């Protein structure tokens, strides 16, 4: 197994190219002027500037959280840029055809050529490079159904009343250090609104990618599903290779009104740093949704990237009979660190939640599942089932499971099961006896281990997840 671990540690990042797009940078550091600059660049209304400034002022009173089970040198928040926009090489593109060819090429390398997407896949993509949404496809089809899917900036311009009503309603600007920072400086992101009774006619997808050096990326995603609406939202992330660490502190808010159904899937493959732990993304993200009566929010994530991941997609089960789900596969190799999990807050009667977390740790990586299941006194008949399994590959990695279960209602039923083990030698031998090489055998066993989660992904992402998993574990065997 030692050779395997060695190879695993030495795997290189496939998406580590760097696009040569002119970018416009804000001066280094953060102060009220930078916040005003960002707001002005985006031509924002006064209320939003005030909202940002309030968040900024609160942020200055906070210390970065230290409770996570991750280690990194302190981040100098005054030594990075808070704004980076691709400089338009002329007037803004009126259609896809006018998008900067370099940007288009970037997407092509990512395998998500916009033109291809538009023609073939039937997936609407809101592509984001660094902070500005450059093109949105399928707007017309969506508009017919009454679905709004656009960049956050556009939403601020075109639908200010919706943004104002829901922004910060699930993740308040004061929620935590990084949420406050994001609220102050968020540059762009996606906005999605599905009106009452509408089933969104296609999967919605955003592809995030970080390009400029030393820029933090702070996108803001807001998804609103009105009564009885249904939407499935996909988010994919990659970033180029760089020696410095880049900070990504995003906020995703989901408002699921009564009887709505929101599915949010993430495949995250950001640059994890090199074998010595140099470079890589710091991925500190706040994701949370709130369910109305009979509403359902389902988070599915496949996380293979980033130097450090820190995120807990959560559901506030406010409505009666509401449902929250969290399906997660996290793979850490090399010197990656991940502290991830979920919170399920049961408030409504008969609210139900399911947590399935599969962690794979290899090389010298450290991975932590951290989860909270909280049943408040009002949540009569609440149910939770949690399954949390960790697989270790190699003797130098770690897998940690830190659940918190707090039950304040006697009628609740809360169950938690967890296990940690290495890939069994017996399973490997069984596969090898059937002619499979060690690498194929490991990959097969790991994919089987994750199957419950992959089954939750939309089809096109499930394929990608399998491939990513294989890539992550490449050289892990054989």
């Amino acid at each position, binding site marked *: 197994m030692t050779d395997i671990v060695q190879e695993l540690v030495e795997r290189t990042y496939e998406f580590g190219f760097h696009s040569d797009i002119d970018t416009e940078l804000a001066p280094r550091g953060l102060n009220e002027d930078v916040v005003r600059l960002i707001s002005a660049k985006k031509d924002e209304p006064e209320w939003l500037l005030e909202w940002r400034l309030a968040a900024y002022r609160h942020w200055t009173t906070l210390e970065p959280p230290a409770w996570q089970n991750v280690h990194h040198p302190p981040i100098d928040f005054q030594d990075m840029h808070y704004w980076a926009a691709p400089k338009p090489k002329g007037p803004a593109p009126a259609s896809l055809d006018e998008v900067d060819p370099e940007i288009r090429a970037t997407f092509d390398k990512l395998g998500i050529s916009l033109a291809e997407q538009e023609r073939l896949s039937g997936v609407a993509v809101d592509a984001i490079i660094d902070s500005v949404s450059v093109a949105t496809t399928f707007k017309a089809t969506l508009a017919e159904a009454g679905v709004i899917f656009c960049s956050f900036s556009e939403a601020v311009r075109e639908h200010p009343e919706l943004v104002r009503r829901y922004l910060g309603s699930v993740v308040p600007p004061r929620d935590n250090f990084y949420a406050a920072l994001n609220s102050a400086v968020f540059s762009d992101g996606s906005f999605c609104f599905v009106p009452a009774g509408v089933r969104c006619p296609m999967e919605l997808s955003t592809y995030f990618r970080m390009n400029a050096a030393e820029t933090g990326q702070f996108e803001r995603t807001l998804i609103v599903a009105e009564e009885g609406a249904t939407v499935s939202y996909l988010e994919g992330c990659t970033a180029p290779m760089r020696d410095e660490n880049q900070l990504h502190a995003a906020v995703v808010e989901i408002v699921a009104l009564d009887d709505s159904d929101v599915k949010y899937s993430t495949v995250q493959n950001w640059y994890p740093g090199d074998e010595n732990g140099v470079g890589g993304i710091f991925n500190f993200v706040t994701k949370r949704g709130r369910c109305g009566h009979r509403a359902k929010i389902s988070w599915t994530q496949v996380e293979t990237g980033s130097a450090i991941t820190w995120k807990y997609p959560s559901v506030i089960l406010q409505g009666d009979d509401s449902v929250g789900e969290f399906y997660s596969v996290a793979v850490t190799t090399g010197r990656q660190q991940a502290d991830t999990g979920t919170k399920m807050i049961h408030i409504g009667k008969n609210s139900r939640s399911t947590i399935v977390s599969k962690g794979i740790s290899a090389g010298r990586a450290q991975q932590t599942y951290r989860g909270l299941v909280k049943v408040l006194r009002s949540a009569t008949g609440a149910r939770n089932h949690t399954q949390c399994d960790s697989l270790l590959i190699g003797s130098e990695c770690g897998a940690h499971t*830190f659940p918190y279960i707090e039950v*304040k209602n006697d009628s609740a039923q809360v169950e938690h099961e967890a296990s*940690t083990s290495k890939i069994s030698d017996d399973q490997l031998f069984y596969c090898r006896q059937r002619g499979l090489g060690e690498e194929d055998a490991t990959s097969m066993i790991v994919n089987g281990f994750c199957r419950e989660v992959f089954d939750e992904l939309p089809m096109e992402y499930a394929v990608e997840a399998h491939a990513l998993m294989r890539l992550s574990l490449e050289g892990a065997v054989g």
Partner: protein
Amino acid sequence: MTVAADDVMTEEAVHARTWLCEHGLPTGREEDWRYTPVTEVRRHLDALPEAPPRQREVTRDDIDRLAGQHGPVRIVHVDGVHVPALSTDALPTGLWFGTTHNLSARVRLQLTTPAGDPPDGFEALNRSASQDVLYLLVADDADLREPVHVVHVSTGASVSHPRLVVDVGVGGRIHLVESHVSLDGGGFTNASTTVRLSARSHADVHRVQEQATDAVHVGRLELHHDAGAHASVTALSRGGAISRLTTVALLREPEASCTVTALLAPGIGARHDDAVTVDHLASRCTSDLTVRSVVPERARVTSSGHAIVRPDTVATVAHQRTDSLVLHPTGQADSRPWLEIFADDVRANHGSATGRLDDDALFYLRSRGIPRAEARDVLVGAFARTLVERIDPPSLRDQIAGWFGPEGTA
């Protein structure tokens, strides 16, 4: 709080006092103490006098009534002071007993916990303030199957710091029953027991906390395992308005093992916090933790299990299982079953379930004519029984079964 005078203080006590002055008692912001109502504990501590105003006479009958009689050897500690008159004179071969006052400095030094800094403020307070530490030594290969019963009595509204150190020689064996009881209410007990297990030794520890319903109890049980040593711990907690028990097993050498069983049955409105850490520091160590709690009206029970598997160890097995039965809508149950694993050759798992009595079972019993309250007792007894049945000696088993009504052992 006052601290024992320097002339009777061991080096350990002096060090602990210095540490305590620097670090103070824990706060609820510390992860290990987030579920303990530390503020209330400290308030209670500050309000009480350190020494009892006047030690009320404790009789043999009091001990029998409060703690029971669980073996031929009984050692009684009243408000942290050894009382020879209430204790057994004759000790079996292979068992040696002493206290701070009759131990030479050299022996005391040998028995002093090797660790430097106290792990937390309450332990530091205990080390610095305990006036009369009890020492039990089991000779190499001595096989003490008859229980040794140590009874700590709190006489009333004062603070006591009972401290017990048990050292089991190579291949030795002891069965220890430790009872914490109250003569009168309102006291604060800050207890600490350390059991050092030499190679291939075996300790069976039953720790019973049955103090007054308005008492505050903070306890620590620490086990140090050498190679091949095994400890079986059964913690039985019922008393106290607030009760916090920290159990730490340090499996320091290969093939050490421990099983920890806890049964938590607080009274109405009480807070019980049970925290068990098993640290697998060497290879081929195994641990098994089972906790059951019964949570009545307005009570809150927290059960934390923390299994740590250190780097470069192999063939570790670590199991945890926590079940909480909430009896009333105002009861609360928390659990925190943690695994922290730094080596791959490990089989670790934990399971936890929280719920109330099974309505169908309750209905079934009632349909057979059993009144609701009684049916409830039967089911609660059944929930506790799997753990109660394993209690030894039988006299103690019967005593604990009595917590769950007459059906407890049925």
